[in-house]
């Protein structure tokens, strides 16, 4: 595998600004100590570590939006209470999810699951509505 070269362009700057605007957090404060990663109960399942998410957010790398990690996040806030820089990482992750959600794309059609609806746990339906519809 060759080393990938990322050209940092205007769109990356914009993405970084967007993340800060939506989250209300200053992501450039992150000093990349990695305490969030080792505190995260879901880190083992993630394709990008929480500290990695912060790093990509600083640069505005769009890879971060494609990551599964932001959806695996359980919003347990352990990272938030441990961050030595006082960054609310849960808010940053939520901002990243919002960027995708606000694209207004429905990933499931409600009519398709009409029949199963009564058998599905209510919480699963709520989650599905939240995550897979715009």
């Amino acid at each position, binding site marked *: 595998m060759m080393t990938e070269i990322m050209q940092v362009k205007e769109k990356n700057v914009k993405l970084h600004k967007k993340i800060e605007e939506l989250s209300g957090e200053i992501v450039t404060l992150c*000093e*990349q*100590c*990695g*305490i*969030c*990663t*080792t*505190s*995260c109960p879901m*880190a*083992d399942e993630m394709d*990008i*570590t929480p*500290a*990695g998410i912060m790093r990509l957010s600083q640069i505005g790398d769009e890879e971060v939006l494609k990551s599964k990690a932001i959806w695996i996040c359980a919003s347990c806030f*352990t990272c938030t*209470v*441990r*961050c*030595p*820089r*006082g960054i609310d990482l849960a808010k940053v992750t939520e901002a990243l999810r919002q960027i995708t959600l606000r694209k207004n794309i429905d990933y499931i059609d409600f009519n398709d699951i009409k029949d199963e609806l009564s058998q599905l746990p209510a919480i699963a339906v709520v989650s599905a509505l939240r995550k897979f519809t715009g």
Partner: protein
Amino acid sequence: MKIGVYVCHCGGNISDVVDVEKVAEFASKQPDVTVVRSISHMCSESGQKAIIDDVNEYNLDRVVVAACSPQFQGETFKKAVSKAGLNPHMVVMANIREQSAWPHYEEPEKATEKAKILTAMAIEKIRRAKPVERETLKMGKNVLVIGGGIAGIQASLDLANAGFNVYLVEKKPSIGGHMAQLSRTFPTEDCASCILSPKMADVAENPNIHLMTYSEILEVSGSVGNFRVRILKKPKYVDEDKCTACNKCTEVCPVSVPDEFNLGMTMRKAIYLPSSVAVPHSHVIDEDACLGLRPLACGLCSEVCEANAINYDEMPQYVNLKVDTIIVATGFDIFNALLKPQYGYHKYRNVITALEMERIIVEMAEGHLIRDVGKDVAFIQCVGSRDAQVGNLYCSRICCMYATKLASLLKRADPSREVYVFYTDLRAYGKGFEEYYRTAQELGVKFIRGRPGELMEDPESHKVVVRVEDTLTRKIIEKEFDLVVLSVGLVPSEGTKEIAEILKLPRSSDGFIKEAHPKFRPVDTPVDGIFVAGTAQGPKDIPDTVAQASAAAARAMSLMNKGEYEMSPIKAFVDEGKCDGCGLCVDACPVDAIKVVNKAEVNVGICKGCGSCISSCPRDAIDLKIFSNDEIMAEIEMALKDKGKGEKRIIMFADDMCTYTLADGVGTAKLRYDSNVYIIRVPSSSRVTPNMMIRAFEMGADGIFLGECEEAVSPYPETLKVIEENVKKAREALRNAGIEEERIQYSPFVTVMFKKFVNLANKMVKIADKYGEIPEEKRRKLRVLEVVYDD
């Protein structure tokens, strides 16, 4: 009264823009002006001679020099008038260069008009000035050094060797501080107690040092040159002079308690030698642990003491001292690792602090194995430092290097050992530090960039699992260690907090003692005559501590050596005829310089001359020398006199330290701002009372601006609050008279905010333009709207 006025050309700097002859002619028409001259270089030998000759020939008693900034040549002319036999304060400068010729160089006519008014302001100020006598304090050669760590030891030795009389007070039974506990010092790996103990012995032997260990400062009153100190000398129950430290008492003592010198990892007896290098080298009885005290139930130690040094009846002693200066060297405590419960300190048996590791290594070298270190050791950096979660945002500065040192020592002792340092940023900034870091890497110490979230203990083997993201490979790594060492940071010691309280020293946001100026007065505290050294001021290593201690000693010496101390003449004073002793000024004073005994009394040793007290007085009884109400009103009057119709005039009060210096800087850079802004120099804008502002509007001001130092660099504490309060009151009066409140503005400055200064000066004129002329009847209304105070 006979005034001489001297208008300087400054070799064209002024005269190319300002018509100096017109200024001179205008000055000659002012009251009491006897002589007026315009001279090419006033600051030159011949310029100064002109003043001296005129004083002698015409019997002048006051002088005005219209030239450059008083911050630039003020001292020159004070000396000149002194030479002529006048009081040095009988000269005032009109700053027609930095405040007129330079910033208004494109408008020579306006610059000339402004120069005239600035000169008239100076003439009126000097007419109302009162001679101020030079006030000096007698200084003795007595210094109190609080804290007997390496900082206090170094400062004491420097002072004592220079012939000063030192009282060194230490809370613990021995001096030496934290340094005495350390194994080796980085980056040279000298044995810490080997290099420290000769210095400790020097303290004990120096005839100029009065060492008081096991003693606490109870109370300090007074001020520079006359601090009164009350000290509690706790009973040691062992006569320091008789004790030979033969240790027989310790051998027979039946009581064992945890030894604080070894951080509780070993036990000591109730009668004990504080450490093997203790100074004074004498045993001490721990009164909480001993069975022999009140009532006497044991007495074994006394029986074996051949020197007859033990006295169970010793009582606490109270010592009163009078000293001239104080050095605070109260040091640090290590961060309490229990505050990071996720690292399991005191829960997991194989998690310890770095200071405990130091003790283990020292004891090991002496042949005592306090505990097994095991094979694999991890260091976790930044525990309690750089951590918003515990409120310590600062870097403790020494942990990177002490961890590197401990890791190197462990690795060298057993090269088969795996030693890891988990860090966030590795800071090897000092002399020889980077090389030392390299040496550790050569030894095979592994530096991994990542901060562990929590530690887990294997319940059976009691090994500790460190799980960390290696942030450089983005892999989560896990490894089992026999021992985890927490590299705990430094926090202000309890003693530092207590002493700051007693001495009324401000502390910075990190909790350490604040210096008078972060750049230029790094070992002075804001209280005159009190200096700070070592980690009481902030985390630092041994060389920096020693350097700072010597600096503090030198600063104390330079204050005491002359035998007298010349105070700034700018001090608050009380008109006893007007004062009714209400005490409002006592609360207003930010440095507690005023007390009421029937009438208010100002302690000139403490007073810093900010003038914050003035606006608190309901009876106009307290005032400031050199910048008195009368003198400032004189300047305001002249700045507004003969204001033409449609003309706008803004009064800007500029504090000497920041805003005035900034205005000079703006002038020097020839940055233009509106020429209708007239600057009045004050020590702090907090001395500008609401009534002063109201009077100014009544007399024709179109706007008032108050500039003040930003809190962090201000020589006076809490002045911005006073300004805010005064502005509020003055604005209220304006509102009641139907005048726009916006015409009064204030702002903090530092001396480099050139753009901000220009913008705000111009903004004041714009506000005046926006609202237009203030009608005469509204101004008249202000006459009855003086701020009334409720007693």
